[in-house]
């Protein structure tokens, strides 16, 4: 396939960015999107230009490092897939593909397609845990968890923290990310003692980081590579309200 890429290039946070256009020849449909960018980068280096910087690591959709807006969609046109899992067979020969970094004020640009998602870590630090110290815990089978509850908690826990939910949301809301963790731990018996403080503190930190509010747009669920359901946002709302009022 032959493709035209329009890629966002920006040296750092301070300098202004712009789109650069690159022609790609003989792209194999079996390539992953990132492998296609690897080829672009080799071509750029050969010409003495700087390669396009993008975050990536495991390249199998689990580390959550990669993420870019491809033709205006978080992680591109793939279904249930992070950018690294997206294959070029999802595109048409001759297509013009626009590649941008995550667009959200809370994810400032570091370079090209690389953004700073440390806001997610700070939200996690504000309560995304069970305060179980190493040692001194009971046998694993002493805590019984009904299978459907374990499964639902696992659905929420499968969040990879990529930020697609924020990038896809018109309000740049991080509700799905926060809800996934609050929901997982609210479902499990281990999470009960800190249930209220967790919901309050994580939401407070989320607001402090400048993420927007949820207006039931559901773009987050649609673009989530792990298909985390917005029903967790409903649970987050209940948890937050209960903690605030009761």
């Amino acid at each position, binding site marked *: 396939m032959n493709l035209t890429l329009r890629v966002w290039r920006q040296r750092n946070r301070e300098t202004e960015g712009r789109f650069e256009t690159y022609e790609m020849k003989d792209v194999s449909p079996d390539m992953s999107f990132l492998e296609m960018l690897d080829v672009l980068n080799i071509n750029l280096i050969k010409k003495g230009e700087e390669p396009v910087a993008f975050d990536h690591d495991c390249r199998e959709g689990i580390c959550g490092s990669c993420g870019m807006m491809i033709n205006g969609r978080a992680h591109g046109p793939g279904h249930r897939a992070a950018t690294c899992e997206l294959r070029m067979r999802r595109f048409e020969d001759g297509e013009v593909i626009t590649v941008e970094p995550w667009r959200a004020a809370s994810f400032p640009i570091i370079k090209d397609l690389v953004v700073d998602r440390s806001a997610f870590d700070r939200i996690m630090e504000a309560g995304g845990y069970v305060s179980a110290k190493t040692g001194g815990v009971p046998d694993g089978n002493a805590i019984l*968890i009904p299978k459907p509850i374990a499964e639902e908690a696992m659905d929420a826990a499968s969040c990879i923290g990529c930020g697609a939910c924020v990038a896809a949301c018109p309000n740049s809301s991080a509700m799905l990310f926060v809800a996934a963790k609050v929901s997982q731990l609210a479902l499990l018996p281990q999470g009960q003692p800190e249930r209220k403080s967790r919901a309050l503190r994580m939401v407070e930190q989320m607001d402090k980081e400048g993420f927007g509010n949820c207006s039931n747009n559901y773009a987050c669920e649609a673009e989530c590579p792990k298909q985390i359901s917005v029903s967790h946002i409903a649970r987050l709302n209940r948890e937050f309200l209960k903690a605030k009022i009761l």
Partner: protein
Amino acid sequence: MKLDAKIPDGPIEQKWSNHRFHLRLVNPANKRKYTIIVVGTGLAGASAAASLAELGYNVLVFSYHESPRRAHSIAAQGGINAPKNYSNDGDSIRRLFYDTVKGGDYRSREANVYRLAEVSGSIIDQCVAQGVPFARDYAGYLDNRSFGGAQVARTFYARGQTGQQLLLGAYSALCRQIDAGRVKFFPRREMMDVVVIDGQARGIVARNMVNGILEPYAADAVVLATGGYGNVFYLSTNAKASNATAIWRAHKKGAFFANPCFTQIHPTCIPQSGQYQSKLTLMSESLRNDGRIWVPKKRGDTRRPEDIPENERDYYLERLYPSFGNLVPRDVASRRAKEMCDQGYGVGPTKLAVYLDFSDAIKRLGRSVIEERYGNLFDMYHEITAEDPYKTPMRIYPAVHYTMGGLWVDYNLMTTVPGLYVIGEANFSDHGANRLGASALMQGLADGYFILPYTIGDYLASETFNPVKTDHAEFKKAEQETERGIKKLMSIDGKKTVDEFHRDLGAIMWDQVGMARSKSGLKKALQLIPALKEQFWKNVRVTGSDLDLNIELEKAGRVADYFELGELIARDALHREESCGGHFREEYQTPEGEAKRNDARFSYVAAWEYRGARKGEVLNKEPLKFEVVKPSQRSYK
């Protein structure tokens, strides 16, 4: 130098508890006066950093990732072992110990392996307490599945995302300590060197990968939890950024490198499809529980797998190993797959693949059960290959996956440099010449939660520490040397990209130092690698600036280290004139084609010592004693 592994005396069951009693302790009020650096935030690093901080130490944590949660432990799929005997199938600490020593082909330390088996149960309890959503049965109890190299079901799992869930558990414990102010996390920092002062590891030099500035950090002890070196082969299941730079630079500062040739090839990966390919994707070993591996009986059969009748299929693992069948250890399964393909039975467009077929399991259990067990893996396979594994068998081929070798550590997990500890995949200690499935997560967390926090206290309590600041001459020297290396890479301005060099090195490693090795091939590698390295230092092209986020510069530094490490792997493989576990020398095999050990000559840990650019690497040996498990020819028949 005589290596002292510091293995405690006494019967194997009592070694660890006796040893713990004799370890010196740091008074709780004094712990905050000690600073410990932890490099790496995978299972080992995150669990160690969180546990050390809980004890009261002042902990500095470094990662080249933006967040601790990105470490490659996250990609582990299948599970984590513990001999809880919840399955009532006769499991015990002793059996897990035995399986691991045997699985490692009698090239690991008995005392370490026993301790690993002993603490593994506590890991499950700890992870459950953190809220890790392990699979449960309908009564609400923890569920288990079986894995290669074992005949009991002792593997705990969270769908096909066990590594993710365990890492997020350790990461959450770390977050709690960051929030409490006891851990300071430094993201996007690459460790460039270890600083040794008066014979003690006293800090590191890190590169801030966003602005390129070199930063020195001082401490009282340094812990490396930086993972394995499988990416020396270019194509592997490791993440793209996984690298050996931290352990390699530590090696050059005096830490011995043990058994570098013990590398693991995982049998079930998605085959390579083109030249551009950047990495290989693993399909969890757990698939071998329900999938059956086969090739057509006829060479070069081009029929679709569904069209090949049952009696024209060769389920070769079931045929060769009736008692373990598809669940033989990884080294055996990989070698047999290669053998089948070498003999012309391979399938798919490249003929470098065998089938992993689920049709019987789907018939027996129904599609929904298979979906529940392996759904995400099937989806991943479908997305990558555009083939639906519910309808047609998967095609799989072995790929580099894990490295059993690593920096030499004693029983306390300390290297030959006092105060420098290595945990997780980065050390060599527990897996011998072959690691069993679901044991990497176990070892990483055992080291981090339950071993290092005790042993490091003994060192801190018994040593005296002169106050050291980062303006010390040794810090300056390390910074200057690092800077010289960086400037050199930036100035070559050649014609070939870092990736192209890396791919060339990988091809040499895979062809000559991969699944089957020979004297002539290894000698050839020992000529080709230095020649390629010379080319690299003359002709590599790194664009951009070193005082900026520069992905090419990052890769160039890592690949420069791979040349040296690759050479050492080949040398170690050449010197070890036997086959054991993942190290298969074609000259040394049984009539049935199994690995043939030579215990009389090679029952030792090969620990390589770097003596400087001129003198190079010198071999030291730590003899292995087997007091409990008597070494025998491994049999999985």
